[in-house]
């Protein structure tokens, strides 16, 4: 009976249109993040870094940037992303993040790269069945004003909405790894 009500849910399965979230009024959102499509089975590192590199640069095309990054069939490490951002003339800083730090960057309009466990969660009436860890790069694109949810950038002007507790549990699997990429003329991360 328990398993009959089981669900297999990843925080990245569903997304909400930015327009809908704006109309709701309960979110602080970094607008117009261009999340590109990527080729290959492990392209999230290229996708996330390209999104951040293209942000605020009218001449940049995130799809072209992603295409020029090497990680499409292999995963990307934090070192890969740090060095690739610096190779492209950006400041990049890695840190052990916190909810407060994320909210602060969102308030300053700085999208943040994060690594977290995106594994689908198999939920039953009696609890959660552990599944293999699936580490994933994503871009924090907003937070709920009441601190209850985080937004992760999705394609086509959409955002994944993740409950704070679920997000913090998943983020802890990377020791709250976060990378802030800024232009050299921008405020230091």
């Amino acid at each position, binding site marked *: 009976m328990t398993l009959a009500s089981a669900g297999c849910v990843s925080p990245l399965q569903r997304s909400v249109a930015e327009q809908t979230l704006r109309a709701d009024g309960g979110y602080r959102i970094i607008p117009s993040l261009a999340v590109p499509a990527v080729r290959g089975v*492990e392209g999230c590192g290229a996708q996330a870094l390209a999104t951040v590199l293209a942000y605020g640069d009218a001449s940049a095309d995130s799809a072209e940037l992603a295409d020029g990054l090497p990680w499409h069939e292999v995963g990307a490490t934090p070192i890969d992303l740090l060095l690739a951002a610096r190779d492209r003339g950006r400041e990049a800083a890695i840190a*052990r993040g916190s909810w407060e730090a994320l909210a602060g960057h969102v308030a300053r309009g700085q999208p943040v790269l994060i690594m977290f466990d995106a594994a689908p969660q198999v939920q039953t009436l009696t609890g959660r069945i552990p599944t293999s860890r699936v580490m994933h790069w994503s871009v924090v694109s907003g937070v709920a004003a009441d601190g209850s949810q985080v937004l992760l950038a999705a394609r086509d002007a959409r955002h994944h909405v993740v409950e704070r507790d679920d997000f913090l549990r998943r983020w802890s699997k990377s020791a709250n790894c976060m990378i802030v990429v800024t232009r050299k003329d921008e405020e230091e991360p």
Partner: protein
Amino acid sequence: MTQLGYEPQAARAAASRLTAADLEVLLANPQMMQAAGALSATAQANIMGILIVGGIVALGIAGSASVMIN
């Protein structure tokens, strides 16, 4: 770094470009030293396995219950 898949030479080159601040964070947080990709085929297979086994158990429970009712 070689455990993460870097060739020894590439590992040395990458490490030499990291700043003291980078190294401080990475060494204090070894869980950060992993590669992240999208849902891998292995992980999806594991999850499908759990769901299939779960489905078999659920069908078994449902089957036993119907026999008892009859």
